[in-house]
């Protein structure tokens, strides 16, 4: 396994665990307005928001500085994974828009707390998608030769 591939796998795994923990906390709280009322929930949210990109930054960017650790193929995979990253963000935004519009259409108003959630989830999904894009890139390259 290439160093970049290994680190992308760790980054994706840690990011996924943090995200699942966050979703569990949000579901346990039951209501999105808890984000405004509960400072502990906000701290957890901010920790995950900073944690997921930080894990990626440390594992994939900072510790992979030596030129011998990353070759032309790795750079190509990183660049290609950006496409997956953007697509994941767009699909998540579209999903948020459709879901919230349908749920709150009758009231005609969506709680403002969702705006924070949308932005934070986009950042987390973006980082996870980058790691996943790298893993898929290696998988496709190994499969196609």
């Amino acid at each position, binding site marked *: 396994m290439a160093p970049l591939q290994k680190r992308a796998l760790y980054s994706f795994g840690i990011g996924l665990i943090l995200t699942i923990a966050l979703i569990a906390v949000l579901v346990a709280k039951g209501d999105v307005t808890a984000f405004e009322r509960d400072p502990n929930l906000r701290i957890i949210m901010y920790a995950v928001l900073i944690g997921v990109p930080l894990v990626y930054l440390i594992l994939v960017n900072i510790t992979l500085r030596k030129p011998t650790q990353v070759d032309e193929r790795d750079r190509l995979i990183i660049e290609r994974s950006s496409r997956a990253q*953007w697509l994941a963000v*767009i699909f998540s935004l579209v999903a948020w828009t459709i879901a*919230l519009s349908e749920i709150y259409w009758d009231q005609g*108003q969506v*709680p403002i707390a969702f*705006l924070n959630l*949308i932005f934070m989830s986009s950042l987390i999904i973006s980082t996870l998608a980058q790691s996943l894009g790298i893993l898929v890139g290696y998988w496709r390259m190994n499969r196609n030769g």
Partner: protein
Amino acid sequence: MSPNQKMSWGNIVVWGSYLFILATVLAANGTILFWQEDSLRNAVFTITGVAVAAFIIMMLFVWIGASRAKVTIDERDHKIINRANALAGPIAMTALAVTSLVLSLVYVKDKNSVMSPYFLMYVTLINVVVYWLAQAIYTLVAYRRS
């Protein structure tokens, strides 16, 4: 001119015009809350619909043209488009962050704890349009430099 360049020019013309016309219409009406008036809402939907249709037609023209001319995409084209995607992503994310921040500030200032579902469409649309424009501009600059 390669298909990437043609598509980039198309994106700049379509989405640049779209943003310009949309900004002009909203400025002329003095509001960004377009859904509050039927005529303005219809105008925004029509402009958006025309832009999407123009984008699809432009893509089809480029694709058919490239297929007929049997244009091959080489290593340089791949490199430029990959770099353009890598650059456009963070720019679009920044646009998303700025939009979310501005909207939050507007609503907090107005002491509102709710927003219209239409604002979510705004946020998504801005992300997509900014991404395509950033990608197109970088692609054209990269071809000019190489």
